[in-house]
Each structure stands twice: as structure tokens, then as C-alpha cells.
């Protein structure tokens, strides 16, 4: 009984323990793992994922899902390119050659709009959040393919593209061959920091936890739950657009499949990091741990030259592990969890 008291706490911080263990493991497995370049690589890979995870965390804490964010990322990244390049070959675009700064603002607003539509359908249309965002995932991905006819946009080395690629490409600080701090990493750290403050120190964040914890009780406490849910989807959309902008700069070209399959990693990172899929539980710091762990494992397996097929298998196993941890968390937290009928059956009103 005494030991089980610490289990929930351990489960909450398990991520950091695992991260250290995994990190040390790879250091012994690969001589280049503990080098400045490699650490930078891990962090860079974590940057785009991290921004998506921050958006997803807000949504998950309210007890909802946003499966559409990887498609939002792809669509907005593509849309931004489309706006700034000319219509003539070798480029392919809208031909309006929009000012890249305006293009960036436009795609962030596009992300917000996508999020608002999703939030509106869920709260006002009373539609299931899982299905709505799954449908949006398909719609956006399909639009992207239809629009580009499957052709990539690449080889962009003119000035407007430099501005567009700035966030994903440049470094805040660089000593060649010694150390490099990419702008994307700093930006992601900032997004995590702001996310943490919003969740813990603002009324908004507290209300999200309340909604995820017990939506009806939150409403009865004077919280406009529907409005808050629309807001988190807008945030998730904007952050997905930000991630899209960042990823465009990192890879230097836009493929139709940009961001494809990302959502699994996003969900896994969030859940491994302690964000409960039932809503109401989890911290930004934990989510950050989840992101770092997955990026570290990905990079480490890569350096160990594990076949990509096995990487998929390992990723799948990690997702299962995450779900297992989530289930344990619920089990240890729920009083009298033997039957899934808690004491509420006894104490709450029968006729209510």
C-alpha cells in the first residue's frame, strides 16, 4: 500500500528516467552519438515535432483529438510556397509572387481557419472530434495532391524563398564545425515555454484541464467549454502552420507527402510524455520529454544502422508502450479500480 502511493508520481515522471537510460544506451552504442552535431540533429528533428505536440497537447487536455494537424502542416507549407513563387517553369505556383512575409502571415491564418472550422463542427455541429479531424486529415491531404498533381516544388534559390525558409534553415548561433544552435530549436523551446505558462499560470489553461477532467462540472462552474474547445483547435491549427513553415525551410522543398504519418509520432510523444487521452491530465514539460525521447530513439537507431523497417516496428512498440503507461496511470489513480464502477454508483443520485 505504501509503495503504490509513489507509483502515480513515478508514472508521471517516468519519461525523464527513460530518456536518460535510452540516451546513455546510445552513447555506448555509437561513438558519434555524443557529439555536438548529433545533439543538434536530434534537437532539429525534435523542433517540428515539438510544435505539433504543443498544439496537440492543448487539444488532448480538453479530452479531444486533433488528427488533422499533420495535413494542416502539409497544406500550409505548400500554400505558402504556392503564394511566393512565379507560375512559370521551373517553378510552379500561383504566379502572384506574394511578399514572403505576407505569405507567412497568410498561412498562419489559414491554419487558424482550419482549426476554427474543425472546432466549429465539433462544438456547434455536435460532431465526434475523432471523426471530424480524421475527415479533415483526408480532405486536406487530398486537396494537396489534387492541387499539385503529385509534383514537388523544389530547387528554390531565389530571395523570397530565403525569407520563407529562414525559420527552418538558419541558426541563431554558429561556430562552424564546433557548435550550432538552429533558430528552429530556439523557436520550439519558446513555444514550449509559452505553452507551459498558458497551461499552468493562465485561467485559460486551468479551464482546459477542468474541461478535460469533467466537462459538465466545468460548465457548471461557469466555463464556456465550447468556446475553449474552438480556441484550442485554432491554436493547434496555427501551430501546425508554424511547424509547416519551419519544416519547409528545413527540407528546402515541398513534397506532396510532407508531414504524412506524423500524427502517429505526435500522439505517441504526447502520450509517452504523460498527456492522458482521457483528458484533464498532463504537463507541457512531460510532452517535451516525450518529444525528446522519440527524437533520440529515432536518431540513435539511425546511427546504429537499424533498417527502416525495424524502425517502424520499434515505433509501433513504443506507441503500445505509451498506451500501456497511460492505462496504468488511470488504473493507479482511480480509487477502487477493481470493478470499473467507482463509488459514484453508491453516492451519486440515481435519478440524476
Amino acid at each position, binding site marked *: 500500500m505504501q509503495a503504490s502511493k509513489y507509483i502515480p508520481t513515478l508514472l508521471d515522471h517516468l519519461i525523464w528516467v527513460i530518456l536518460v537510460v535510452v540516451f546513455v544506451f546510445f552513447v555506448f552504442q555509437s561513438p558519434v552519438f555524443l557529439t555536438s552535431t548529433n545533439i543538434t540533429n536530434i534537437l532539429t528533428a525534435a523542433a517540428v515535432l515539438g510544435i505539433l505536440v504543443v498544439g496537440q497537447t492543448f487539444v488532448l487536455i480538453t479530452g479531444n483529438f486533433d488528427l488533422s494537424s499533420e495535413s494542416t502542416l502539409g497544406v500550409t507549407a505548400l500554400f505558402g510556397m504556392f503564394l511566393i513563387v512565379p507560375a512559370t517553369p521551373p517553378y510552379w505556383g500561383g504566379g502572384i509572387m506574394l511578399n514572403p512575409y505576407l505569405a507567412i502571415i497568410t498561412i498562419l491564418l489559414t491554419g487558424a481557419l482550419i482549426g476554427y472550422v474543425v472546432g466549429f463542427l465539433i462544438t456547434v455541429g455536435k460532431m465526434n472530434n475523432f471523426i471530424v479531424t480524421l475527415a479533415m486529415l483526408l480532405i486536406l491531404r487530398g486537396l494537396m495532391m489534387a492541387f499539385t498533381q503529385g509534383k514537388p516544388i523544389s530547387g528554390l534559390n531565389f530571395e523570397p524563398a530565403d525569407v520563407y525558409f529562414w525559420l527552418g534553415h538558419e541558426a541563431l548561433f554558429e561556430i562552424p564545425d564546433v557548435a550550432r544552435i538552429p533558430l528552429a530549436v530556439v523557436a520550439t523551446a519558446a513555444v514550449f515555454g509559452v505553452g507551459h505558462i498558458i497551461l499552468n499560470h493562465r*485561467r485559460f489553461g486551468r479551464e482546459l484541464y477542468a474541461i478535460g*477532467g469533467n466537462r459538465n462540472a466545468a460548465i457548471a462552474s461557469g466555463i464556456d467549454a465550447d468556446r475553449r474547445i474552438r480556441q484550442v483547435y485554432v491554436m493547434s491549427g496555427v501551430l501546425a502552420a508554424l511547424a509547416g513553415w519551419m519544416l519547409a525551410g528545413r527540407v528546402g522543398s515541398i513534397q506532396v507527402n510532407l508531414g504524412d504519418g506524423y500524427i502517429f509520432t505526435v500522439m505517441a510523444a504526447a502520450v509517452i510524455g504523460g498527456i492522458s487521452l482521457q483528458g484533464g491530465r498532463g504537463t507541457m514539460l512531460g510532452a517535451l520529454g516525450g518529444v525528446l525521447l522519440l527524437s533520440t530513439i529515432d536518431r540513435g537507431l539511425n546511427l546504429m544502422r537499424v533498417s527502416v523497417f525495424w524502425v517502424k516496428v520499434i515505433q509501433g512498440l513504443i506507441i503500445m508502450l505509451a498506451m500501456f503507461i497511460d492505462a496504468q496511470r488511470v488504473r493507479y*489513480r482511480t480509487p477502487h479500480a477493481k470493478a470499473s464502477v467507482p463509488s459514484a*454508483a453508491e453516492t451519486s443520485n440515481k435519478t440524476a
Partner: protein
Amino acid sequence: MDDAVSTPVVDMVDIVKVFPGVRALDSVSFSVKSGQIHALLGKNGAGKSTLMHVLTGLYNPDSGSIRIRGTQYENLNTARAKEAGIALVAQHAKFVPGLSIAENVYSGMLPVGQFGFVDWKKMKRDASDRLGQFDIDIDVTRLMEETTVAERQMIEIARALFADASVIILDEPTAPLPKHDVAKLFEFVRRQRERGASFIYISHYLEEIFEVADHVTVMRNGTVAGSSPVKDITQPELIRLISGADVERYKREGSSIGGAVLEVKGLTRPGAYSEVNLTFHGGEVVGLTGLEGSGPGELARGLFGLETLGEGKVTLNSVPYRHGSPIAALQQGLAYLPRDRHGLGIIGIRSVRDNVSLSVLERLEPLFGLINSAKEKKLVQDYIDVLGIKTPSMSTAVENLSGGNQQKVVVAKLAATEPKMLILDEPTQGVDVQAKVELLRIVDDLSKRGVAVAVVSDELSELMDICDRIVVFYRGTIIREFRKDRDKITTAILLAAIEGETVETINAGV
């Protein structure tokens, strides 16, 4: 039925079941004899449901022994309880509404003919025969959803009986039934009793006990308050056993009633209440009571914006009251403590701090929109101290507190909004005796600070202890109003007002 000679089919001895902070069953012994209709009475939270959950194998008792038809069961689970012959018929029987009666009767064991297809003809014939054995004459091809609630309950009882059940638990079967169906159901239950089936009959309607039951056991605060053959007990004795006049009580002393806070004039919501005229004054505690569904609960939820309010005039501090959402209600100073604590009151997985400050976060956000943590902690600590909330720390999840302390957390959340009008819906439900007394003290304190308080409750003794006025609803209208300073108020008088007419109609219907 002669109790003495028949052997017990169910024999539960010294059952103890403890939930965190609550001794739900404290050494309870309960036995049912063959061919007996055994009524089980008690208020909500008295332990009836927990005892039945133990008997049906849903909960494992912490100690005590259970014998069913002479066999001792150590680790009873739901499957083994069913095998042993225990069946529960819930108020709303579990059927598949879109399937025929025959299919529902056979659920899970449809007769299969050649080629593995369902033999519909055989099924219809057999279902009809089987129900016929229990004197249920019904067209089995009708859809389940077309049957009445009483028919469904009879079918469910029959289904349990031919699955070899020997003890059937009827959990408040008559609450959703129209009067003439109650008589029909009783007739049916008595006939099955003649054939040797035993029943455990849970109900809040005392008249029914005298009509249908042989033996009665009353539970109170997790113990057996009394058990006796029905012929040896009177209704007032039962009421005394149920309400436990001898338990510790809180008495409100003195009150200074101020001006009108909430005024309700001619308020009508079809199907809930009609022509309600009520005025709540600052510093006054008003009790609203009546049978379930007779209006007070509906009025409370309507005023707070959880349900529609209907047509009529409502003013708060002489200003027209904007209704329609809890947000608007709280902004205007009307707070509501929900009856359903787990569903609407607490956010169980969040901390005491998060729960208490939830409705006043705006007020705690002065600097750059960041919550002032020191101010928040002080606010929460003050309420923990003043209300006497027993919690290891303010960061403990509320679900880990006892029922009474959970309820105090909800009260603290409401009090923090500094309401002008506070409506409490069954505030003492599901909390232990000590916490009840403390909650009533808190209500008294709040009213002495000038808050207008309304208490919706069917705990009559508590209403008598705490209220300046008690308003009785019957079928959506106010039929009586008692003032502490003017009228003589006793449980019997209140009960007469609450169910007087009901008693007559039940008697007339039989």
C-alpha cells in the same frame, strides 16, 4: 408467509465494506427466506446499493460471509452470483429496444435450426410458452420498444426466473410506473412468490411496503437500523427508523432576514413546474421539497441555466435576471451546488486548489494575465480552514477525498464566487453523518453573512433543523409553505403535504 419455518436463500453475515473515508457497510447482516418478499429501505447513501452490489458480486466485501442457497461464497463475482441464482431487475430493464420481445427473451441463446440459421418459428412458440408460464400474455413479435415499462419489468423478472434465479432484486421498480401498472406488477410479483421465488424489494414508497412485502429491513449510515416482519411494524416506526431521529443534528439558532434577493413570479415550465411564486431574502434559508420530479430540483437547475427556465418573471436584487447559462448565473451572483456531485460538482482528477479557485480565476489574474499564485493559495487555504476540509494538501486530487470533503470543496468553489443567492441541491447526499452536520453549519454561516440560501432536499429532519421556511411542491406547484416562526412543523405534517395525495391515489387504484 411464516418467516420462522422457511430456510434462508440468502444469508449475509457481518458484511463490511470500506471506501476511502466512508464505511459504506459496517457489519451488516441481511437474510432473505425462500418465498419471501423482503423490503430493503433507507435513504440514499444508507448502504442499500452497496449491499446489493456485494450480493450481485460487483463489490468484494472487506469482511463477512455470504451464503446463497446454503453454499458459502468466498470470492463472489457477477458471473458466480448469477449462477447462484441472484438476479437484479433495474428500474429501467436492460433490453435491446429494436428487437422483438421473443428475441430479447432469448438473448444470447437463440434456438438454432438446420444449417445454423435461427429457428424463428420455434423461438416465437417457445418464448410465448415460457412467458405464458408466468402468466404474461403478450404478442412476442412486438418490438421491445413498444412495450410499457411494467411489461418490460415483468418480462425481465420472467427471464431471470427461467434462467433459474431464486432471488430477484427489484430496485425501485415502481418509480417510473403509472398507478394502475403498479397494481399489476404487485399482483405478478405475489404470484411468483407463491411459486417459491424470493424478492428483495427496494423502494422509497412506504405505502407499497405494507401492500406487497412480508419482511422489512431498514438501513441507515451503513448499518441495519431495524428488521422486522411487516405485520409487526407501523409506518411512523418505519419513518423513524429511516430518518434516524436519534442521530446527531445541527440546529440553526436565530436569523436576521434582510431584503428580497431573488424574486420569482408566475414561473412556468411545462412538465416541470407551473405558476411558481417565491421570494428568497438575504440571510434566509428556504427549504424546497417534494417527491422526485415534483418541481424543486427542476426549478433549481432552471434558475442556474442547466435546464430551460420557462416563462415568468425573475428578478435578482430587483434587476431582471438573465437566465440560460451557468456563466450568466454566476456573473449575476447566483451559485448552485449540484445534486450529482460526481457528474457536475467536482473535477475528481484535479487538485483541491484547481477545484476551489476554478470559478474565480479571472479575479486572480491581475498581472499580465497570469494567475497570482500566492493569492490563489491563500484563497484556497482560507476555505480549507474555514470549511474544515480534511485533505493531505491542496494539491491532492479531489477524488481521493471522502464524500463529505468533496462536497465541501464544491461549497468552497461556490462560496469563493461570493454569491448573493446560493441554491444547494441535496447538499448532504452521500456524505457521512459528521460531514452532514458540518455542511449544515456552513450553510448556516453563509446565510448569516447575508447570502440568500435555498436548500432543495428530501431530508426532512435536516430541512426542519436549518430552514426558516419550508416550501412543499406537489406535481410542479407549491401546495404548502411552512414558516418556522409561525407554523408547527413535524415530519408527519411535512410528509402529509409531500405525499398526502399520493397515498390516496395509490389506495384508490388498488
